[in-house]
């Protein structure tokens, strides 16, 4: 690739050897001006994956040949002048998204042999925009986890310190983008699975409003919470990817019919008079003091730019973890009943009857955390417990949602830390589900209320990145992206590269 004869032009804005340092927005410019080709870009990132991913385990599947073919098609499109901002840009999909003809495992033994017969809507739209898929990223099994340690394919390592977790469940997507193995990646967020890994790896992660992106072809975990979004280096890049993914879809009746605004244009909109609510709930005893200090400093950046800070209190937010661990397992136990060893997925050898066959198939196909969630779901939905747990959780969910709605009468955004601490060590919490669950304490509220939320890098604690979380009212993605973009212009935390992944 470094062949001198291919480097004839004087004014390459982007050095071929360091293409991975550029953002999607910068690469889109270079592609459009034909300063680089998608084939060069794709080969460059494939070489990085081959060289660097053994230590990270960010990818479950690398689709090399298909990627090169897509890159050539993208170059033809760009040459004809009909590309989009994503045409020719190498991306990766979390392995929860169905991809036609490509293994879609959801991080589980249950789907280890599943070749999807169709594309998820989000995948189809990015494909249509001309993005080049390099592969499918590792994740917690069925997106159930906060550390990427529940994957059938082994844990993902955080590029900032390979002894720590990258967060989860979109841990492979986060590690891949942070290590510059790919320009951007899709993720899904049910209780924090985009924002928490974004915080742990120094990325921008956005979970849009519930229903903003179609769930068609996304393996279902908790249908009233699941939402697709992106992990990118910058808010500007998030705007570009989300633009392609968002919008109503007749194949998902819960996708929102509302028109999709121009997110990139929204980045420049005035926002100086915003009022930002700062809930005391987000600054509790569990928050690392150094993390808290960095979040306070980030808030003062907004203040300096003209925003007004307002102390608020969300009365029922402390119950968001218990609500989540009723609602999500209940929906999961129902959704995962489809894995029966008959139509697709793992099938056990069994000489017994149907019940024994189902039990053995599912016992072998699911890992320990997934089993715990299914059993929890079965418990809270079972006769005699339904009212006390499931119905009660739905009522408290309503109260939490009302708390947010009331807060948004006075404030435009809510801000706080994304996580209580920076990335924790591999193996540190995996034996204690409750400690693992409590790690999501700041991120669970937004999905319960269906609200869009974003994490942007706001500093380093002991050489590990931490994130600032912004939560907005329904359909306020423009505001979130604009605020993050403005913050990223004032700070350089999002430009930091994990040592060892610079070259």
């Amino acid at each position, binding site marked *: 690739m470094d062949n001198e004869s291919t480097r004839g032009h004087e004014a390459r804005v982007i050095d071929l050897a360091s293409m991975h340092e550029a953002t999607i927005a910068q690469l889109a410019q270079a592609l459009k001006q034909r300063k680089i080709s998608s084939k060069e870009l794709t080969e460059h990132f494939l070489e990085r994956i081959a060289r660097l991913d053994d230590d990270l385990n960010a990818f479950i599947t690398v689709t090399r040949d298909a990627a090169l073919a897509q890159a050539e098609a993208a170059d033809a499109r760009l040459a004809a002048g009909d590309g989009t901002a994503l045409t020719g840009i190498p991306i990766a999909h979390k392995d929860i998204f169905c991809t036609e003809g490509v293994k879609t495992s959801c991080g589980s033994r249950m789907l280890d042999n*599943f*070749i999807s*017969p169709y594309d998820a809507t989000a995948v189809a739209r990015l494909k249509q925009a001309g993005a080049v898929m390099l592969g499918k990223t590792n994740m917690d099994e069925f997106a159930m986890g906060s550390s990427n340690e529940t994957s059938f394919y082994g844990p993902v390592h955080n590029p900032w310190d390979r002894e720590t977790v990258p967060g989860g469940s979109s841990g492979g997507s986060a590690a891949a983008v942070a290590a510059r193995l790919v320009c951007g990646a899709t993720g899904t967020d049910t209780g924090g699975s985009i924002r928490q890994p974004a915080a742990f790896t120094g990325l921008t992660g956005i979970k849009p*409003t*519930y*229903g903003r992106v179609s769930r068609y072809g996304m393996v279902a975990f908790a249908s*009233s919470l699941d939402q697709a979004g992106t992990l990118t280096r910058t808010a500007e890049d998030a705007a570009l990817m989300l633009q392609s993914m968002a919008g109503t879809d*007749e194949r998902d*009746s*819960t996708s*929102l019919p509302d028109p999709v605004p121009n997110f990139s244009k929204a980045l420049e909109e005035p926002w100086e008079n915003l009022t930002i609510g700062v809930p005391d709930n987000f600054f509790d005893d569990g928050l690392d003091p150094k993390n808290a200090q960095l979040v306070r400093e980030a808030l003062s950046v907004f203040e300096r730019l003209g925003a007004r800070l307002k102390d608020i209190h969300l009365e*029922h937010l402390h*119950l968001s*973890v*218990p609500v989540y*661990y009723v609602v999500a397992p209940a929906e999961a*136990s129902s959704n995962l*009943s489809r894995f029966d*060893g*008959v*139509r*697709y*997925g793992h*099938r056990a050898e069994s000489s*017994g*009857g*149907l019940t024994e*066959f189902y*039990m*053995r198939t*599912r*016992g*072998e196909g*699911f890992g*320990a955390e997934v*089993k*715990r969630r*299914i*059993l*929890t779901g*079965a*418990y*809270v939905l079972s006769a005699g417990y339904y009212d*006390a*747990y499931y*119905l*009660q959780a*739905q*009522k*408290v*969910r309503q*109260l939490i*949602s009302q708390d947010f709605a009331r807060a948004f009468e006075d404030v435009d955004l809510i801000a706080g830390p994304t996580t209580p601490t920076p990335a924790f060590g591999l193996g540190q919490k995996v034996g204690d*589900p*409750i400690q693992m*669950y409590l790690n999501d304490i700041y991120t669970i509220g937004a*999905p*319960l*209320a*269906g609200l869009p939320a974003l994490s942007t890098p706001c500093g380093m604690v002991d050489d590990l990145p931490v994130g600032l979380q912004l939560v907005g009212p329904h359909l306020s993605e423009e505001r979130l992206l604009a605020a993050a973009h403005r913050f990223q212009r004032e700070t350089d935390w999002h430009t930091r590269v994990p040592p060892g992944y610079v070259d």
Partner: protein
Amino acid sequence: MPLSQEDVEKLCLLARLEITPEELADVAAKLSDIVALVNQLQAADTAGVVPMAHPLDRAQGLRADRVTESDQHERYQRNAPMVERDLYLVPKVIE
């Protein structure tokens, strides 16, 4: 109220999920911790609160009742572990 091993065995049958005898004690202990966590909900005053089933409080969209999908069973059955004459095979159900 901690879950007994018998409780867990009953849940496993309800959920059609086998766990090994060696796993049973650990699963019972961890599920008991989870139930203790979610029991915090009992303290919340929810009198008169409408349960929230959908985050956006919107009605489902409707569309015309017409066939839009074509028959692709051969394609889909390529992922099936056992198929014979276009039928999915299951263990014998009727004696």
